[in-house]
């Protein structure tokens, strides 16, 4: 049986570790099988909501601070086939567009695309998850 676990990211990046932790814990689903029985697995859902959409912004440069960026984490998530949704209402409210956000990991050879969807669609996805978590 596969259970969906939702990672809802509402925090801005960097000031706290919240959004980074959401991404790293979601990506840990790649190796969770070692702890589970045959046929069991975890499928993460990642939703960037509210100010959290800022985590997916392109052109983040952490040269000064020497840490990995949330842009890289978003892209890694897509590379590892995590479904990533941005809340459309928030993307628009903050003046962002598809062009300004990480929408795929094409350059790394990834197939998964991120999607910008209305909050109602995110809520519908959350209803299919066994557990929710807000970061």
């Amino acid at each position, binding site marked *: 049986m596969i259970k969906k676990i939702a990672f*809802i990211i*509402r925090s801005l990046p960097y000031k706290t570790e919240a959004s980074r932790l959401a991404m790293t814990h979601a990506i840990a689903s790649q190796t969770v099988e070692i702890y589970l029985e045959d046929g069991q697995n975890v499928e993460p859902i990642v939703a960037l*909501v*509210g*100010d959290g959409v800022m985590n997916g912004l392109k052109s983040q440069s952490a040269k000064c601070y020497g840490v990995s960026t949330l842009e890289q984490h978003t892209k890694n998530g897509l590379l590892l086939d995590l479904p990533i949704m941005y*809340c459309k209402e928030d993307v628009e409210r903050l003046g962002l567009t598809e062009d300004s956000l990480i929408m795929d990991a094409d350059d790394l050879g990834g197939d998964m695309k991120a999607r910008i969807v209305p*909050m*109602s669609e*995110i*809520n519908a996805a*959350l*209803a299919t*998850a*066994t*557990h*929710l*978590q*807000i970061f």
Partner: protein
Amino acid sequence: MKLAVFKSDFRTGGDMLDRLSAEKLGIIFVGNGIYHAAVKDAGAADPVLQKSANFYVLAEDLEVRGFNASQVPGNVKVVTYDDVVDLIFNEYEKLVWV
């Protein structure tokens, strides 16, 4: 879904609460979230309390901050840690913390 939201802060998290939808919604004020139930800012009723939801407030978190059950509106049920455990396992299926 039956969703319980732990509201742990007074000045943030309202935007997230506005975005979530659930057939059955419980809002449990804990930590600094208790000010939603205990305080009227500028005399106005708290907007969170206008939502269509069941409201609870953790007694221990009221008391540590200098409030008691008599200061809480009638539509907010004062609960203990024990009660919260029962709410979690018996009344709601999914839990979030904002």
